[in-house]
C-alpha cells in the first residue's frame, strides 16, 4: 500500500489532464455520499412502511417545487453558506474552526445590539453597514481567541474552539436571561434600524418564507473569499501554510501571522451569518437561534470541498435536507434528516481519502 502510493506520488503522471483529475477527486466523494445517503434514507423510509419514491417526490416538491419551500431553502442555505465559508476558510490554512456555532451567535447578538442602539429612522444603508460590521467584529473577537492561544501557546484550536462554544453561549445566555430580554421570552426587543428587506417584499410569491437579502451578502462574501484565496497574495500564503506549514515557513511566510489571520477572519465570516436571522428574519436576537448551524458548517465545508462555490452548492444541499424534513413529516418523521446529515458527513469524510488513494493507485498502474 505505502509503496504503491509513494510511487504514484513521486513520479509525474500525465495520463489525464490535471483539471480532470481534480474534478474526479472533488466530485466522486460527494456523489458516493449521496448514494449512501439515498440507500440509508430508503431503509429509514421502509422502516416506517412508506414508499421511498413517494417520499422523495414529496421532499422535492416541498423544497424546490414551490416558491415558499424554495424561499425557506434559500433562507436556511444563507446561514449555512456563512458558516460553511467560515469553516472552509480556516481549513484552507489547515486549521479546524469548530467554533462557528458560537461565532454565529455572537455575531447575531452584536447585530441586534447595534440595531437597538441606533435610533429609528437611521438611513438603511448606514444602519445595515454598522450592524454587519458589529456582527463581523463580534465573530472575529471570538475567533481571535483560539488564534491567539494557538500562535502564542500552541494550544490546539479544535479543543479551544469547542470549549469556547460553551463559554460564549453561556455568556450570551447570561446577557439575555439576566439583562436584555423581553419579559417571558429569551429574546431582545425588536431592533430600531437595520432591517433587511425580505424576498417577499420584492416578489410576493415568496410570501411567508424567511428568505431575505442577506443571501446577497452571503454570495458577495463567497466571491470575496474566492478572490482572496485564489487571486490575492495573502490567500496564496494561506493556502501554502495549509498544505505544508514548515515549507511555507521556509519559503519566508510567517505561519503564525497566517494562522492568526485565518482563524480571526473565519470568525468574522461566521459572525456575519448572524445577520440572516437577526436583520433579515426575526429582527431580534433570540437565545439558541444558531443551534446546529455552526456544526453543520463543518459538513458544508467538507462536502463543498473547501471551495467557496462548492460551499454554496453544499449549503443548498443541507438546506434542502433540513427543509425537506418538514415537507415529508406527515409520512416519515423529519428526524430522518438528522440521521442523513450524519451519514453524509461520515460518508464524505471516508470517501475523500479513499477515492484519492484509488485514483492515484489507478493512475500509478496505467503509467507503469
Amino acid at each position, binding site marked *: *500500500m*505505502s509503496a504503491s*502510493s509513494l510511487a504514484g506520488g513521486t513520479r509525474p503522471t500525465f495520463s489525464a489532464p490535471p483539471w480532470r483529475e481534480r474534478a474526479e477527486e472533488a466530485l466522486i466523494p460527494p456523489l458516493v455520499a449521496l448514494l449512501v445517503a439515498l440507500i440509508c434514507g430508503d431503509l*429509514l423510509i421502509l*422502516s*416506517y412502511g412508506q414508499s421511498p419514491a413517494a417520499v422523495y417526490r414529496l421532499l422535492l416538491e416541498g423544497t424546490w417545487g414551490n416558491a415558499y419551500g424554495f424561499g425557506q431553502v434559500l433562507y436556511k442555505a444563507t446561514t449555512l453558506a456563512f458558516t460553511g465559508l467560515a469553516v472552509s476558510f480556516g481549513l484552507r490554512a489547515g486549521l*479546524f474552526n*469548530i467554533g462557528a456555532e458560537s461565532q454565529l451567535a455572537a455575531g447575531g447578538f452584536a447585530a441586534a445590539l447595534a440595531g437597538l442602539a441606533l435610533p429609528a429612522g437611521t438611513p438603511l444603508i448606514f444602519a445595515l453597514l454598522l450592524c454587519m460590521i458589529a456582527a463581523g467584529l463580534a465573530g472575529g473577537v471570538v475567533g481571535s481567541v483560539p488564534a491567539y*492561544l494557538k500562535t*502564542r*501557546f*500552541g*494550544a*490546539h484550536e*479544535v*479543543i*479551544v474552539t*469547542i*470549549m*469556547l462554544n*460553551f*463559554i460564549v453561549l*453561556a*455568556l450570551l*445566555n*447570561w446577557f439575555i*436571561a*439576566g439583562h436584555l430580554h423581553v419579559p417571558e421570552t429569551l429574546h431582545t426587543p425588536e431592533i430600531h434600524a437595520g432591517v433587511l428587506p425580505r424576498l417577499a417584499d420584492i416578489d410576493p410569491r415568496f410570501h411567508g418564507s424567511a428568505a431575505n437579502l442577506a443571501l446577497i451578502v452571503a454570495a458577495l462574501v463567497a466571491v470575496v473569499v474566492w478572490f482572496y484565496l485564489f487571486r490575492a497574495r495573502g490567500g496564496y500564503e494561506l493556502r501554502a501554510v495549509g498544505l505544508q506549514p514548515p515549507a511555507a515557513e521556509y519559503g519566508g511566510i510567517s505561519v503564525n501571522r497566517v494562522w492568526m489571520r485565518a482563524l480571526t477572519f473565519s470568525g468574522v465570516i461566521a459572525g456575519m451569518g448572524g445577520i440572516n436571522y437577526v436583520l433579515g428574519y426575526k429582527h431580534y436576537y433570540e437565545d439558541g437561534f444558531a443551534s446546529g448551524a455552526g*456544526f453543520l458548517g*463543518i*459538513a458544508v465545508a*467538507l462536502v463543498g470541498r473547501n471551495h467557496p462555490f462548492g460551499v454554496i452548492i453544499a449549503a443548498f444541499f443541507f438546506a434542502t435536507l433540513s427543509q425537506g424534513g418538514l415537507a415529508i413529516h406527515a409520512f416519515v*418523521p423529519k*428526524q*430522518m*434528516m*438528522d*440521521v*442523513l*446529515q*450524519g*451519514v453524509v*458527513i*461520515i460518508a464524505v*469524510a*471516508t470517501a*475523500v*481519502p*479513499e477515492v484519492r488513494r484509488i485514483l492515484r493507485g489507478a493512475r500509478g498502474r496505467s503509467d507503469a
Partner: protein
Amino acid sequence: MNPVSFVTQMIRIAIPYLFAASGGVVAERAGIVSLTLEGFMLSGAFAAVLGTNYSGSPWVGVLCGMLGGLIFSLIHAVATIRYRADQVVVGVAINLLAIGVTRFFLKLFFASSSNSPRVAGFGGNIKAAGFDNPLLWLGILVAPFVAFVIYKTPFGLRVRAAGEHPEAAESVGVSVTRVRYVAVAISGILAALGGVYLALDQHQFTDQMTAGRGFIAISAVIFGRWDPIRAAAACLLFAAAETLQIQLQGSHAIPSQFIEMIPYALTIIALAGVVGRAVPPAALGKVED
C-alpha cells in the same frame, strides 16, 4: 450546607463523567481523538432504555446500552482507522448521527419527539441516596481499573505505544491497527455506560439528554493530562462545581452560567499552559498512510 449530602450529590453527578472520561483516556492514549464521547453516551442511554423497556430488566438495558455504544464506536473506528477519515470530522458527525438516530428511533418505537415512557432502574431506596445502584459503584471503580490496564498490563503498554510512537510499536510486532480498534471499542462501551447510568437513573430517555456531558468528559481528559486518575479527579472537580451551583441556587451569589463555564475555561487554561502545559499523546489524531 450539609457536607454528606454535598459529597453524595457530587458523586452522583460525577458518575457519567467518570465513565466517559475513562473511555476517552483509553482511545486518546491509543492515538484516536475522542470528540465522539457525547454521541457514544447518547446512543448508550437510548439503547439502555429500549432494552429495559422491552425486557423489563435494567440489566438487559445495561447490555443493550453497551452494545449501542459499541456499534457507534465501530463506525468511528472503521471510518478513521480503516479508511483514515479525519478524526475530528467523523467525531463531529458521530455526535450528529447519534442525535439523529436516537430521535428517529424515539419516534419509531415510542411515537414521541421528546421522551420515552418510564422504565425500570436500579435501587430507588430513598435512604440509600442512590448508593444502592450497582452502576454507581462500577463508575467509582472504572478509573482505577483503567489506570491499572493502561499502566500495568501488556495491552496498556501497546495502547500507550500506539499513541506515542506507532512506528516503534509496529517495528516490534504490535498491530497498531488492532490495538486502536480495541481501544476505540472500549471507549464506546465505557462512555455508553455513562449514558446508561444517566438514563436508568432518570428512568427514561429524553431527546439530547446527555446535554454536553461528553464534552465535559473530554475536558476532564485534557485537564487530567490523559492520565486516568487525574482525569477522574477532574471529573470530581467539575461535578463539585455543579453541585455547588445546585446547592447555592436561589442565593444568586454567582450566576449559574459562570459555574457552567468552569470546566471549559479550566481546559483552555490547561491547554495554554498557564499552570503546567497539557501535552497530548504524540501521535494523537494522526493515522499514518
